[in-house]
């Protein structure tokens, strides 16, 4: 999994293929005739998608759809939308931004948890297998129940907490922070809570009710590391639990699968170190 640098994460993305285009220099363009014969041959790809509709009282099954990649965008989400538009309108999946920032289209593509809008269709593979996020309750087709995941995120209190009652006053203004302190949050604030990492962790599969999972733990560490937050000790004490934090066995599937190139495994290790220093 390529670790994307902060520069590429913050670089503005133009509409053209996701690559940053600088202002076009004045260059003479000579007209070139396009050879169309190569592109007319259809490039068929099979998509094997998990389907289940509990309202229709049926068992889960796999539907296979064929898509001509010449008539389709490069991403798996483009193919899914094309299938829904042309082949099967009953195919159900979550999607919103189509640019990898909302985290709605998280699913398991060819065995890896990624965002469908950021996953290129593998031209070499004979078929693309799309499943919902593993070990999650399925609501319909590729839509999973993330309410437990969101409840766990709520439980770590992901907001600024201060002890000083004066700071609760609106006239307090901004909570100031140095550049070095702000740098500590880089690599953690970019998390879009897509649940790809938590759903890839075998420890989370077996203990989803009590283990918080890498996504939530990284956000907990983001608030622990935030210099403006004053209840650091209480946050660490909340996490100091054999199930909430210490189900992590450094399997590191989370960092490998993160579609944004973040490192939740490292954040969890940092929490463990901070708690060890606390004792």
């Amino acid at each position, binding site marked *: 999994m390529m670790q994307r640098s902060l520069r590429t994460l913050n670089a503005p993305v133009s509409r053209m293929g996701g690559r940053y285009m600088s202002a076009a220099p004045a260059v003479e363009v000579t007209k070139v005739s396009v050879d169309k014969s190569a592109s007319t041959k259809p490039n068929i790809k099979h998509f094997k998608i998990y389907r289940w509709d*509990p309202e229709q009282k049926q068992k889960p099954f796999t539907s296979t759809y064929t898509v001509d990649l010449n008539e389709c965008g490069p991403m798996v989400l483009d193919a899914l939308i094309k299938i829904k538009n042309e082949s099967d309108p009953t195919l159900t999946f979550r999607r919103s931004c189509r640019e990898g920032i909302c985290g709605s289209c998280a699913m398991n593509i060819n065995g890896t948890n990624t965002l469908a809008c950021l996953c290129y269709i593998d031209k070499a593979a004979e078929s693309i297998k799309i499943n919902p996020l593993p070990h999650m*309750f399925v609501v319909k087709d590729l839509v999973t129940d993330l309410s437990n995941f969101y409840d766990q995120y709520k439980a770590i209190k992901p907001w600024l907490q201060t002890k000083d009652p004066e700071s609760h006053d609106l006239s307090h203004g901004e909570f100031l922070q140095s550049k070095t302190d702000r740098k500590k949050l880089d690599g953690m604030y970019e998390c879009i809570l897509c649940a790809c990492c938590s759903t890839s962790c075998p420890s989370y599969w077996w203990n989803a009710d009590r283990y918080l999972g890498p996504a939530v733990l990284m956000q907990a560490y983001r608030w622990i590391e935030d210099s403006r937050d004053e209840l650091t000790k209480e946050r660490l004490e909340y996490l100091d639990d054999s199930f909430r934090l210490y189900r992590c066995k450094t399997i590191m599937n989370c960092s490998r699968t993160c579609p944004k190139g973040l490192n939740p495994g490292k954040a969890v290790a940092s929490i463990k170190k901070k708690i060890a220093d606390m004792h």
Partner: protein
Amino acid sequence: MSSLSGLQRDVLKLYRTLLRTAKNKAGVTHSPLEKLVQRKFREEAHSVHRHDWQIIEHMIRQGYKQKKVMEMPGFSAASIKTYDH
């Protein structure tokens, strides 16, 4: 009392929870809300075979979600609309 399977016990537990929530919300017993819960539950229960455990478990989870909605302060009533295809 014949011995109930674990799944049957879960279904009955959900039924009791939903009826209790309806009673607490309406303030009285035998309210329209309670009758609606009963009707919906019986319709859903009859629509599925006893061995379709996956669908039954899914329905139980959806039932607890509906219970959460019923407990919300803004909730006051509900109705079922059926469409004849």
